[in-house]
């Protein structure tokens, strides 16, 4: 009798388990907030979802611990990191473990299946089907498939099953298995896989060794091997697949004897499966499956590295430790204890497979299908996880087991090979016929290894890790044809880049007369050139064309397409490289080749020159003690970097006596020039007055003097006001603010009637402190971050571009968004710091949409100044003061308590809106980027939803100075009065003149009580207006709140309601010339 049915039945226990686990895991993933586990420990979660400490009564607090509790505590101490971790782990296991009730239902279904299978009529006997040499030429597999088809035919008619379909066993296309699901409500509960197996001793093991051939060339290719009598190529994978069927039962028995009795081991395996699943490592053919990891646990138990009394957490730790430190691609391991000389050597297996892990028979490689890159990825992840566990981070559990790492969010760049049929030609080009023969014609599997090796070699130092996703294993109905190789989606490769390797445009080869030179030339083809270097050496070298930072980031694209075309005949059109589609959103209109890092560097360079001038200025009564930048440009996070201004004088109204240009009525609005703020500290002196008003006057005198001196000594165009001096230098405009260290102090002084002077924070003092102390510190810290992580600028700017495109830019300060972006680099766990704007932006969306702002401060540990203890202190301080803190709390080493950058917003509603938008944008964008046919319109997620607004005010592009920065850049816009060459005019250009912003200021001042206004400062053509529902409640008359309201008689009573019609007309009046139309979109508000 072939394939005893109970075998299939048992199988679902091990291999079927992931299927069963799936719904449960999804459940935890969704509520994957930090709160999910903690909340449950509270007796009664208080209102509004705020976490609060549990209050115990006195008696409860001082009760003697019970024996049980003591044991529990001791166990926690020994077996787990901390009690919090223990709670989290237990909670997770509860989620993924099958309940007894479900187990019973599954058992019942299995018994039914067993009966049905036994009763299938005319099941032929083993001897009738299997014959002696069936191991050869896929005969066994074909018979196995026929047998399964026979079973399927009968079982499909049975009303017990809701669906009966085929799938491949672990993606191996020679081995279909039958999937049975019950009918009715249990359909999603369980899937039973039927695996037919030959009797354990049917095949002679010695014929299935990795060195043997079981697929004859004559049969496979229809021709005999080359006549020179060369031996048939070994078919190790084919042999393994046969062996797997024979060993199935013994593997299961091994697992159940080793793991079945120890709860800790079972928990550990469950945790490991979750760990693998979150990293997408167990997917498809050749995945690092749960079965492999269970066998690994067995191995570690048998080598006494894991003890059966260990807890699940310890098992997880030990396995990760083992994976991180052992390279199975070099030193394979074996479960086999016997020293039988007839057994093949490990070296034989290394010859045939990339990863080696032998089972207890010593003949079967469990990791036969695992590629080297998959194993390296597992190793890399294990290493990252070990560092995370060792760092004792507060949220280690969350990051380790609850955060998904899909490929698009984990890797800097990805590339899709599509269509897959191209790989067939690649196999021929790479002369992979023996591999094809071994893999039964599966050209994807055959080509994968050589392909990744080729790219790894080519990308060299630019690459940290190369991973490939495997197409998921498809299912198909029993009346359909099985899917072909080319139908199985696309092959996606993920590249994790090394930022330091990205700056070089050169691949340096050997010297021309060395023997390796030929190899180099062969590898790089026509791109390899002989070059003479400065040290006199003549070497082979490849030089890539890349001038800007963004182009350099995309050199891997050039490398990949070149190598694939050269060595595998895969043309450029089939390589869909996803590395820079989002760059378009932060490119200036005219520089499509750069994402602005260079322009920012030019501005920063000019600032450095200016600060040198300030340092060396002669004639100031006090010398300059510090010059600090305080503008987004000076920390590389301005979305659209400034360009040198060269005004065309005919476009402006000159105001000669103040050497300034003014905008003209008859021209379109001139280009927007934002001065870059620079704070200039003067040395201390006792001469400063003690009175705030007088200090202001003295400061103004300094501003005037500064302007005078800069003009005199360096010929710079300057304009001084009471609070700042604007300086025009090389086309950039800087706004120098003189700061006096003690001024915030003076503003804080309050004198009591008794003459006692005390210090109180006042809005003015806080504001001044923020602008002259904290902002420069932040700017210099982020400037430093950019030097460490070149992708920071791109990520921060993309993030800001997106928030502003969603019309929410005015509610979030520039600094708060920069800090969120910085958090992605300083606290990247479980990822590594992003090396491309694309992946950084995706993680920004993920962070924004999942972070629990209500219960956690976002700690941004700039310069790593905060110790772990200090962070713990900050967290507890946060919980204690939560209600007094802003909705969004961002903590930095310089600002540990107050979260200054989020003090004035966003409001809870606006933050919620941002969270919702990010949660919608993320899957949409990821789907676009993962689409092998190309991402389509990448700007979709940047276009704001407009249907939520009550009124839309459309603006005339003529008066929008930054019109060209819009998400959908206009085909034509207006001339903004700039010359491409420096003109003769050296008058001060029009500064900070932005009609939409002036208009918004007026609107907010006049109607801020009644409505919210939303606008994209980067060239938005529309202002969204949202009426505030509370303001529309009829109110009794009050002299202090008549603004824009009218008195109406409602049911005999006089009430105040907003005068909507007049207000709508006011919108047009206030913005005369700028406003095109005012569209009132909802009638519900016209009272």
């Amino acid at each position, binding site marked *: 009798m072939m394939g005893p049915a109970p075998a299939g039945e048992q199988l679902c226990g091990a291999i079927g388990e992931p299927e069963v686990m799936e719904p449960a895991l999804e459940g935890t993933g969704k509520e994957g907030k930090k709160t999910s586990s903690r909340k449950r420990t509270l007796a009664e979660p208080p209102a509004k979802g705020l976490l609060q400490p549990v209050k115990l009564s006195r008696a409860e607090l001082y009760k003697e611990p019970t024996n049980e509790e003591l044991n529990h505590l001791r166990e926690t101490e020994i077996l787990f990191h901390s009690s919090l971790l223990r709670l989290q782990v237990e909670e997770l296991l509860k989620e993924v473990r099958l309940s007894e009730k479900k187990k019973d239902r599954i058992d019942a279904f299995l018994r039914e299946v067993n009966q049905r299978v036994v009763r299938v009529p005319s099941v032929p006997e083993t001897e009738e089907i299997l014959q002696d040499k069936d191991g050869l030429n896929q005969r066994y597999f074909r018979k196995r498939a026929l047998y399964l088809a026979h079973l399927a035919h009968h079982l499909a008619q049975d009303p017990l099953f809701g669906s009966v379909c085929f799938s491949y066993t672990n993606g191996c296309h020679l081995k279909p298995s039958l999937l049975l699901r019950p009918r009715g409500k249990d359909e999603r509960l369980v899937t039973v896989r039927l695996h037919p197996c030959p009797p354990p001793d049917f095949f002679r093991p010695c014929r299935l060794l990795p060195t043997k051939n079981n697929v004859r060339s004559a049969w496979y290719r229809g021709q005999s091997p080359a006549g020179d009598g060369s031996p048939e190529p070994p078919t190790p994978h084919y042999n393994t697949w046969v062996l797997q069927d024979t060993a199935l039962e013994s593997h299961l028995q091994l697992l159940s004897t080793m793991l079945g009795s120890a709860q800790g081991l079972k928990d550990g395996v469950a945790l490991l499966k979750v760990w693998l699943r979150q990293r997408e490592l167990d997917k498809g053919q050749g995945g690092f499956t749960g079965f492999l990891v269970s066998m690994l646990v067995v191995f570690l138990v048998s080598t006494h590295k894991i003890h059966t009394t260990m807890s699940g957490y310890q098992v997880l730790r030990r396995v990760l430790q083992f994976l991180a430190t052992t390279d199975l691609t070099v030193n394979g391991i074996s479960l086999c204890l016997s020293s039988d000389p007839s057994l093949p050597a490990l070296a034989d297996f290394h010859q045939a497979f990339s990863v080696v892990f032998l089972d207890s028979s010593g003949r079967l490689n469990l990791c036969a299908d695992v590629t080297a890159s998959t194993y390296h990825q597992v190793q890399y992840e294990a290493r990252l996880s070990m560092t995370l566990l060792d760092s004792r981070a507060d949220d280690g559990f969350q990051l380790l087991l609850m955060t998904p790492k899909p490929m698009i969010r984990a890797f800097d760049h990805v590339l899709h090979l599509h269509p897959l049929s191209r790989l067939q030609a690649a196999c021929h080009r790479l002369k992979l016929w023996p591999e094809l023969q071994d893999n039964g014609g599966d050209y994807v599997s055959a080509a994968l290894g050589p392909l990744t090796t080729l790219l790894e070699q080519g990308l060299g130092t630019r690459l940290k890790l190369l991973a490939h996703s495997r197409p998921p294993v498809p299912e198909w109905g029993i009346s359909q044809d099985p899917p072909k190789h080319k139908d199985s989606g696309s092959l996606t490769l993920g590249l994790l880049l090394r930022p330091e390797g990205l700056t070089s445009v050169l691949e340096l080869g050997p010297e021309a007369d060395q023997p390796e030179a030929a190899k180099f030339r062969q590898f790089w083809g026509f791109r390899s050139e002989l070059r003479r270097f400065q040290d006199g050496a003549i070497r082979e070298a490849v030089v890539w064309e890349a001038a800007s930072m963004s182009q350099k980031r995309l050199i891997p694209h050039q490398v990949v397409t070149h190598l694939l075309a050269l060595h595998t005949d895969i043309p450029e059109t089939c390589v869909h490289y996803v590395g820079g589609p989002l760059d378009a959103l932060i490119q200036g209109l005219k520089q499509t080749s750069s994402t602005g890092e260079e322009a920012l560097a030019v501005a920063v360079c000019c600032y450095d020159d200016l600060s040198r001038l300030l340092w060396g200025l002669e004639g100031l009564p006090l010398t300059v003690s510090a010059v600090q930048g305080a503008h987004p440009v000076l920390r590389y996070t301005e979305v659209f970097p400034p360009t040198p201004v060269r005004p065309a004088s005919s476009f402006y*109204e000159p*105001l000669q006596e*103040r050497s300034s240009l*003014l*905008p*003209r*009525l008859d021209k379109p609005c001139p280009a927007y020039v934002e001065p870059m703020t620079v704070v200039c500290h003067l040395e201390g002196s006792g001469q400063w*007055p003690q*009175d705030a*008003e*007088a200090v202001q*006057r*003295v400061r*103004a*005198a300094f501003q*005037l003097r500064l*302007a005078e001196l800069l003009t005199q000594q360096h010929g710079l165009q300057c*304009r*001084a*006001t*009471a609070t700042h001096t604007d300086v025009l230098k090389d086309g950039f405009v800087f706004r120098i603010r003189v700061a006096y260290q003690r001024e915030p102090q003076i503003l804080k002084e*309050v004198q009591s*009637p008794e*003459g*006692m*002077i*005390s*210090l109180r924070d006042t809005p003015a003092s806080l504001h001044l402190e923020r602008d002259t102390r904290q902002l420069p510190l932040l700017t210099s810290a982020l400037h430093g971050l950019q030097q460490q992580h070149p992708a920071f600028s791109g990520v921060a700017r993309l993030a800001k571009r997106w928030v502003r495109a969603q019309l929410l830019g005015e509610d979030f300060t520039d600094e708060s968004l920069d800090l969120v972006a910085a958090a992605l680099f300083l606290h990247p766990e479980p990822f590594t710091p992003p090396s491309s704007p694309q992946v950084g932006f995706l993680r920004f969306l993920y962070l924004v949409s999942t972070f629990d702002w209500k219960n956690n401060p976002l700690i941004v540990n700039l310069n790593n100044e905060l110790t772990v203890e200090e962070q713990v202190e900050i967290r507890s301080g946060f919980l204690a003061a939560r209600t007094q803190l802003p909705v969004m709390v961002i903590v930095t080493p310089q600002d540990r308590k107050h979260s200054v950058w989020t003090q004035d917003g966003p409001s809870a509603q606006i933050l919620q809106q941002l969270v919702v938008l990010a949660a919608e944008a993320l899957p949409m964008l990821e789907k676009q980027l993962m689409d092998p046919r190309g991402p389509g319109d990448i700007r979709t997620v940047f276009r704001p939803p407009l249907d939520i607004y009550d009124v839309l005010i459309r603006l005339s592009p003529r*008066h929008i100075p930054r019109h060209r920065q819009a998400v959908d850049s206009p085909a034509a816009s207006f001339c903004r009065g700039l010359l491409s060459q420096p003109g003769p005019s050296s008058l001060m250009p*029009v500064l900070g*003149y932005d009609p939409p912003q*002036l*208009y918004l200021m*007026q609107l907010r*001042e*006049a109607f*801020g009580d009644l409505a919210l206004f939303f606008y994209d400062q980067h060239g938005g053509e529309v202002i969204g207006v949202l009426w505030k529902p509370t303001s529309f409640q009829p109110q*009794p*008359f*009050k*002299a*202090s709140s*008549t*603004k*824009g309201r*009218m*008195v*109406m008689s409602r049911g005999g009573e*006089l009430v105040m309601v907003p*005068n909507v*019609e*007049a207000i709508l*007309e*006011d919108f047009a*009046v*206030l913005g*005369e*010339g*700028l*406003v095109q139309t005012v569209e009132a979109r909802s009638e519900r508000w016209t009272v």
Partner: protein
Amino acid sequence: MKVGPWRAGPERRAWSQGAGQTPRKRDRAGAEPQLPAAPALPGGKMVARRRKRAARDPEDCIPSPPGYAAIPIKFSEKQQASHYLYVRAHGVRQGTKSTWPQKRTLFVLNVPPYCTEESLSRLLSSCGLVQSVELQEKPDLAESPKESRSKFFHPKPVPGFQVAYVVFQKPSGVSAALALKGPLLVSTESHPVKSGIHKWISDYADSVPDPEALRVEVDTFMEAYDQKIAEEEAKAKEEEGVPDEEGWVKVTRRGRRPVLPRTEAASLRVLERERRKRARKELLNFYAWQHRESKMERKPRPAHPQAPRPWPQPWMRPLARAPDSGH
């Protein structure tokens, strides 16, 4: 800011300053205009008047709050809908003083943002000669600073809806204004008011500073300030070491012997030092009375051991009370 009749032109400032010489010292609470919503209103006089008014002009169908008259106001003829100015005669309770002359002042609510002092003055000049117009953000709760504020150091805020106090030369102006039908037009052909792009461009031109004017202003201010400081110093020097009639000697920062500055931080430091010194010397719970007292201490005591003050003093912080817990 105060503004005279809209025709006033360049003399405007000087003239309005002259008007500002009227007595301005007032009680804070009393300064608030009498709001009809306040329940403390002395009787049904106001209500009766409203009824009378309602009876007088039944065709006037614009609803207005009790005591107020509503005057429609629009930016220009082009607009369909109008805002409503709610106006009434400015009056305060008996016994309180007001900056604005009783009976001649019109109190205006809900002045739209595009309506400037000049235009309001022009619009109301049909009712009688206007002496001054002052626009404010809120009804006059606090005394507004009367000295002209520097345009360099206190730039004008962006206007929203405001309230206005319009002072007529004669009381008849107020009653005429209360009977106005409107709609008033802020911007007409003969007197256009700038808005939108026009306004922003002219605002920008105005904002380009004149460094000379700034310098002059700074110099004048600093001269005055230096003089004030010099005077204070001279006075302090004169008083240095000279006891007053009760025999107290005033100590200053500039004295021969430096003294601690009178700041909260300094006094806290001193108190802390004193406390430590005392704690070192003192034997705790040594005497029976000490024991008793410490027991008493542990019991909850009323928060304020002193007699309750008539009103809370905001500058008193708990720390300032530290010395009174001594033994």
